[in-house]
């Protein structure tokens, strides 16, 4: 680990100022990912600004009927928050499907958005990686890529975003509030993470020095008809091969509104709005689900060891839509759909 200096911020303005005043600096929240990456020499910040103690840990109602998730609230506190369990059980389930209780107790909401890919090559500085060292090449292409992308990848990077929480967020479409050297702004969740294109070193659209302060969920929480289905290589403590977040609104057997997002398949949580449009107004039948699932993976590309994910994703979408339509899921159900 390279030597670094460290400070602890007590308010947002100080944090932003402190970071701007140090070259090669980084914010650290729970540290559950950044510290690992520093030990592996993947990240080498010269200065850390600890933002975990900023007064941003509240989860509170918004006037428009939504819910504000403070950036420094832990993943555990968020998952088990009464309002989240009641109004956004999809988020509860997605968070609980990720990591371990110990990690969720330390990890923050802002940090969850900022976690980096688990690509084997990104983690191993002995191998080339465009995300870690732009221009060095992508070892995963033509290499071992079981956990890599089938959608939206580029010739420079086929990494995936590893979060479960963010897949549910992609479906719930919150606004990300950020503060930076140029003041505050908001970013729609779907615009927060990005595809690799020819700049895989950038995971998201934050400007230099910007800090996430909250996630503002809209009122609509799909609390009745939802599903989070995670498929992985063991039953806990493994990243998703494919995960699916679904939120539906139903009028009898007819779908009146739909959200559909996938994890483990792309450089960002993969929300498919066209698929959502295909669901609206349709009966909740196997035929509908199959057509929508086929649409989502129509342009999917396998990389060798992850070819199976195309078919797996298709089947997982069908299953998750069925589960959501049945409306039998409840907050706290951690092991779902065969997992």
């Amino acid at each position, binding site marked *: 680990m390279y030597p670094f200096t460290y400070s602890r911020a007590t308010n947002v303005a100080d944090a932003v100022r402190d970071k701007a005043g140090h070259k090669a600096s980084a914010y650290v929240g729970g540290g559950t990912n950044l510290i690992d990456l520093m030990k592996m020499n993947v990240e080498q910040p010269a200065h850390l600004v600890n933002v975990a103690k900023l007064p941003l840990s509240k989860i509170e109602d918004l006037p428009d009927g939504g819910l504000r998730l403070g950036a420094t609230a832990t993943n555990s506190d968020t998952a088990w928050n009464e309002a989240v369990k009641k109004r956004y059980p999809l988020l509860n389930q997605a968070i609980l499907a990720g990591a371990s209780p110990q990690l969720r107790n330390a990890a923050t909401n802002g940090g969850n958005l900022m976690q980096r890919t688990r690509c084997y090559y990104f983690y*191993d500085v002995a191998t080339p990686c465009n995300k870690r060292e732009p221009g060095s090449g992508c070892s995963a292409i033509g290499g*071992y890529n079981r956990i890599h992308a089938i959608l939206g990848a580029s010739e420079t990077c086929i990494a995936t975003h590893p979060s479960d929480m963010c897949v549910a967020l992609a479906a719930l479409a919150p606004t990300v509030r950020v503060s930076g050297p140029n003041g505050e702004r908001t970013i729609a969740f779907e615009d927060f993470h990005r595809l690799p294109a020819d700049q895989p070193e950038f995971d998201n659209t934050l400007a230099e020095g910007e800090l996430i302060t909250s996630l503002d969920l809209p009122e609509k929480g799909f609390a009745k008809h939802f599903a989070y289905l995670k*498929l992985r290589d063991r039953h806990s403590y493994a990243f998703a091969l494919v995960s699916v977040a679904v939120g539906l609104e139903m009028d009898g057997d007819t779908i009146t509104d739909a959200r559909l997002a996938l994890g483990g398949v792309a450089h960002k949580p993969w929300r498919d709005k066209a698929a959502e449009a295909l669901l609206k107004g349709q009966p909740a039948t196997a035929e509908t689900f199959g057509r929508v699932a086929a649409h989502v993976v129509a342009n999917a590309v396998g990389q060798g060891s992850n070819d199976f994910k195309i078919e797996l994703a298709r089947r997982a979408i069908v299953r998750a839509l069925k589960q959501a339509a049945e409306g039998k899921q409840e907050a706290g159900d951690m092991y779902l759909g065969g997992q």
Partner: protein
Amino acid sequence: MTQTNHIGKAPNRVDGPLKVAGAAHYSGEFNVPNLAYGYVVSSPITKGKILKVYADEVRALPGVLEVFSHENVPYLAWFDKSYKDQIAPGGSPFRPLHAPDITFNQQPVALVVADTFELARYAAALLRIDYEQQAHETNLETKRTEGYAPGKGKTGFQPPPPPRGKPDKALENATHSIEAEYAHGAQHHNPMELFATTVEWRGNGQITAYDKTQGVYNVQNYLMGVFGLGKNDVRVVNQFMGGGFGSGLRPQYSVFMAVLAALELKRSVRVTLTRQQMFSIGHRPNTLQLLKMGTNPDGTLAALQHHALHETSQFEDYTENVVNWSGMLYKCENVKLGYELAKLDIYSPQDMRAPGAASGNVGLEVAMDEMAYAAGLDPLEFRLRNYAERDQNVDKPFSSKKLRECYRQAAAKFGWENRTQAPRSMRANGKLVGMGMGGGVWDASQQKSAAKALISADGKLTVRSATGENGTGTYTIMTQIAAETLGLPLKAVTFELGDTDQPEAPIQGGSWTAASVGTAVKNACDALGEKILKLAQKPADSPLMGAKYEEVEFVNGQLRLRLDHAQAVVLRDVLQASGKSQLEADSSAMPNMVKQNGYSLHSHNVAFAEVEVDEDLGTIKVTRVVSAVAAGRILNQKTARSQVLGSVVWGLGMALMEETVMDHKFGRYMNHNFAEYHIPVNADIPHIDVIFVHEDDDIVNPLGVKGIGEVGMLGVTAAIANAVFHATGKRVRDLPIMLDKLL
């Protein structure tokens, strides 16, 4: 006085409180004064040469003490012999920092030593090394036709027996026959505790090495050979181990590095490997197997052929017994077994839980399932029809073998009779249900061991032997044996292990510790008992006057006549009356070759597993496992059960998730961490029933114990694979069975 019959009961671990309280110290935790820290630099290339190590740049950092590499390593032993440890395979052992040549990926190429761990790690990251790369080959698939039969070489390795009967002809004429290839990739031991060595510099060239090892004497001998040290110059200690599974059988490069640095710097040094480096110290080899079987009209085996090929390094012929078990587990007159190695640019594989057997057992027991289906027989019935009463490999009877009783009890507990034979014929909870079985056989061996017993005037017994405790329960069972032999409560007995200042014990492997060290402990206590009897017979009015040792027994703190319990003396009174502060006795134990010569000595087991498979998604959940083990006498029901529970988890991991994946482009293992090398977590592990079928066996050793740690893993992997077939109708022959193989 409390009851002093301890053997076969289920006392708690005597070292449990120490572990819970954090008072059990592991090798990387001995905080000796003035400690320096070494950090190993690993090669990013797989084959080639080091051209230059830019050590001076790093030496210039304040706090960095030295950078060791082949460029400045001092004179070390020259001959291979000096680097050979007790179970080194044939060939030329790897010598760290010996030459510029790179022969495997993550080969240790330098050690950076600094005043703090953090500084050493930082400096190691800065160290520039120029390499000349050469083309490498790490893919076993490319060597299918280049296998060769290894020579004998490694202790315990038995080349397959010659063919018996007419295996080709019999196969040709069989009523039903099958032929199938089975494969599994490399697997790493992945104990929780990292390899670490703390070397305490005692001055005058003398050191104490607190080293993570399954054999302190093995490490001491290695260090004496490599560094030219005398026996009194180097003491090796390891009292606790956070898991070994075979990874600590051979001295690892961590101990070489730490001792090198300590001797050169004349200072205490600690070296701890990283998790990633734990993937550079040996593994269960990538193995390919070809099985051919045929049956007679009555469902008996007409022919059995089993051939295995696995990888080894360029420098050693790592060997294990993969196929021999197939000539022993079932009765068959026509058998052909073959075993070959192929050299790749990798580090030497290393023994890993039930080495060889775990691999060969998957081939044999999945093939037996395939054969049962081909012959239209229930897999259990098929095994019963081919039950081996004798070990046909050596044409001897077994000293004891209650496998049939294992089958009976485990099948009843599992409810095997509820199984319907046809694949895809059982369903529950919207899932396909499958039931499978597999069994296994493992050596019941005993190695030469020594122990010392001392008793103080107040009746406190201490017994010492330089064996190991890697979580198996060694402290506890040895305490039980010693306490029962001298009729003492467990609290009055302390067993000490893991120190070359103690009498020599073999490396802790092969499931032989209970039999080997246990017998030595019993013998040492008996030798002490004879001395105590003599003291007891000194008074002219002794009630034991004239009694021979065989005629007395130590029970509940007393020494009494076996046939007349009223004729007794209190042990503590005898000791105190003697006026001696302490009595001691040494003894050793060897297998009784004369007694054992006419027999085959083995433990057996069977496992039944049930799985639920979500057919659409390919997900597999193991819902139940019943394991029955026949391994002689069980010394401690609790620690033995824990060992078998762990074994079942190992079998489950091998079946469904464990695989170290190499990117052959780099010749490098890529999932080298706990996040991506998957071992089962609690959520994967179902209810496990463990049954011990008692065997009376006075041939195998005086205690009648056979060892259980390895046999318990056998059968489990195949049982799960067979259950997946039963559920789905899909026969997956390359492990692990991950969900994509069922889509």
